[in-house]
């Protein structure tokens, strides 16, 4: 059975099913992270005192991570653009770069976390650390999820380029939207936790 508007757009909405689907998913993710930000606000405003981020967390490392993630967003959109230009090889290069940068992000986060644990700082230590670990942890899980999907399109999923290049390009675009969203969350997370 052929579900319509999988690849071609529906005239009155101007959209494919996948495009609507991924934006709806991102809407739900906005509410998910929104709840955590709302929790942060409630906990912080109710606290007698609250440490400034840079007194506990590693701002230089996190700044590097911010740059890493933003760069990975560029490589991600370039991966899609390469497909639109019909350049599969370039796509693989950029997509590989995106996955690699994601891995760099996670490695830096791993070092951050281990250092915290080594110095006796755990989620249970205080609410600042609790919300820090929960927010960055959930974000990190989303990074891993995005990397997994990207790895699929870089690897086994890429054979769809031969059979249905349009659909493949769209699916990469949708994966890209998720990846940009993960970057977007970090753009707000970084100042909130580390700089304020």
């Amino acid at each position, binding site marked *: 059975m052929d579900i319509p*508007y999988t690849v071609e757009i529906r005239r009155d*909405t101007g959209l494919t099913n996948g495009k609507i689907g991924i934006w*709806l*998913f991102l809407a739900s993710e906005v509410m998910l992270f929104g709840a*955590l930000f709302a929790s942060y606000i409630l906990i912080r405003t109710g606290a007698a005192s609250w440490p400034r981020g840079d007194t506990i967390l590693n701002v230089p490392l996190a700044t590097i991570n911010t740059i890493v993630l933003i760069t990975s967003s560029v490589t991600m959109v370039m991966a899609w653009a390469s497909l639109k230009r019909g350049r599969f090889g370039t796509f693989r290069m950029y997509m590989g770069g995106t996955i690699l940068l994601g891995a760099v992000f996670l490695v830096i986060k791993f070092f951050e976390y281990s250092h915290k644990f080594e110095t006796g700082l*755990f989620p*249970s230590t205080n*609410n600042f650390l609790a919300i820090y670990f*929960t927010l960055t942890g959930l974000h990190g899980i989303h990074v891993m999820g995005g990397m997994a999907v990207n790895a699929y399109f870089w690897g086994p999923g890429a054979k769809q380029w031969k059979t249905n290049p349009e659909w493949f390009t769209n699916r990469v675009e949708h994966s890209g939207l998720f990846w940009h969203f993960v970057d977007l969350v970090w753009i707000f997370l970084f100042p909130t936790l580390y700089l304020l």
Partner: protein
Amino acid sequence: MSHPDAVASPGPSVAHEVHHEALGFWRRYVFSTDHKVIGIQYAITGLLFLLFGFTLMMLMRWQLAYPGSALPWLGKILGDTRMPGGTMLPEFYNELGAMHGTIMVFLGVVPLAVGGFGNFVVPLQIGAQDMAFPRLNMASYWFFFLGGVTMLASFLVPGGAAQSGWTSYAPLSVIAGTGQTMWLIGMIFLITSSLLGAINFITTIIQLRAKGLTFMRFPFFVWTQFVTAFLLLMAFPPLEAAAVMQLMDRLAGTSFFLPSGLVVSGQVLNHAGGGNPLLWQHLFWFLAHPEVYVLILPAMGIVAEIIANNTRKPLWGYRSMVYSLVFLGFMSFIVWAHHMFMTGMGTAMAAFFQTTTMIISIPSVVILTALIISLWGGSIRFNTPMLFALSFLPMFGIGGLTGLPLGLNVADIPLHDTYYVIAHFHYVVAPGTIFALFAGIYYWYPKATGRKMNETLGIIHWIGSLICMNVVFMPMFLVGLAGVSRRLYDGGAGYAFAQPVLHLNAVSSWGAWIMALFQIPFIFNFFWSIRKGEKTGQNPWQATTLEWAAPSPPPHGNFATAPEAYRGPYEYSVPGAAKDFSPQFEA
């Protein structure tokens, strides 16, 4: 009266049928991506959970009717940790209570109303071949299944299942046993299922509707599923975040919801503190209020379809109903703290939430009134679906009206957390939504199976259930007004002020047990009619909406040729027309 098939059927595309036929048993009936199979999977699983949740309640009702009296045979089965000597322990009562609520709402009603009816009917009613994302649809069901298994398994862990209410308020839930952790994990699976489903429904309704099927030609049922999907999409994620935070509190020692200096069993808890139990309440009710509209909207949709069909008249005020529905969906996100009036809220915010709550009652009244006015001047057919749909109206009316004092913060003071609340919401969900779901089963059963359910058994099921529902829940208003709190394992027997109303607990219990007996004709009818029910054709109810253009049951792909909508959804008794109904799908 028979009429020729509206859509000429040259036979389904051979290539597709051969392809689908070639799939083995598992791919066709267990791991299917066909919305109809998935819908039936959701429906059957949901019905089983409804039965299980009802059974938990029937056990609770023994304790409430005769507090402290023993059921030795049950005591032997459930053991000393739960019913030593056959007498129910308070902890076990709490387990039953928390899981009854959780199972009925999240594993019973919503999967049946949205997963079951939504999945089966919506693609057919919009003239589509399937949902926009069939594989995602299958994944949604299996996440639901996983969530259900997790919830059931939680009964088996040491300490038993969750027992902090279906609302899992902190700090009690944070210090509770392992069952609570499983509740949280189960909820994460269920929320995932709902989110994926919501994405599917919204995309499908927007993109896959047939030619000529504009939004204002949608059957009202499609509109209700559309709005419901948005409620699920936007309201569930905050509860998912809260569940993660409660898991962190329980497993990683954080204090999101634990205030400083919390004393448990005479000892100060060794935790960082600084948390706020109200944070849990806000995040929980941010979901749980829209959730109650998730419970009622599909039901209103089903009732609308059946009333239009059995009055042989268009729905009165379709446009107002649609606008009210959309307005209601939006408002449902800004009323939630009316569940929290007793948390020390200041007057400004209480005023805000009271106001929004009063405003939100208006669209409900508009919809209910429109449905009632739709009956005026109709040629009413009193078949089983219509009996259930008709009785939904006053039952929902009682439920809705009794909610009003709860929504005003001062009137709420003596009523909060009493049996009045239990009566209010059960009226809306039990003789409200569940009756609508029964109606929907009787109504769409012929489409799914090609046979009608037995009318006589249906009428017995209806009259018994209707009377018993009222016997169970009407007394609870009085019990609540007398001041008896909910979640008391002895039903208030320990309080002097409750003595005058205690006998009503036994009345409710007998109502519940007799209601169980009246479900037997339904269960029997459901299975017996698959083989022995009266065979029907494509459109046994002489209905107008697109699902009746497909064969009964519809094949994989639903329609031989894509249907087109030529008119609105309820063109019944059009002056000058040859028949008393002009289907949407007939040119």
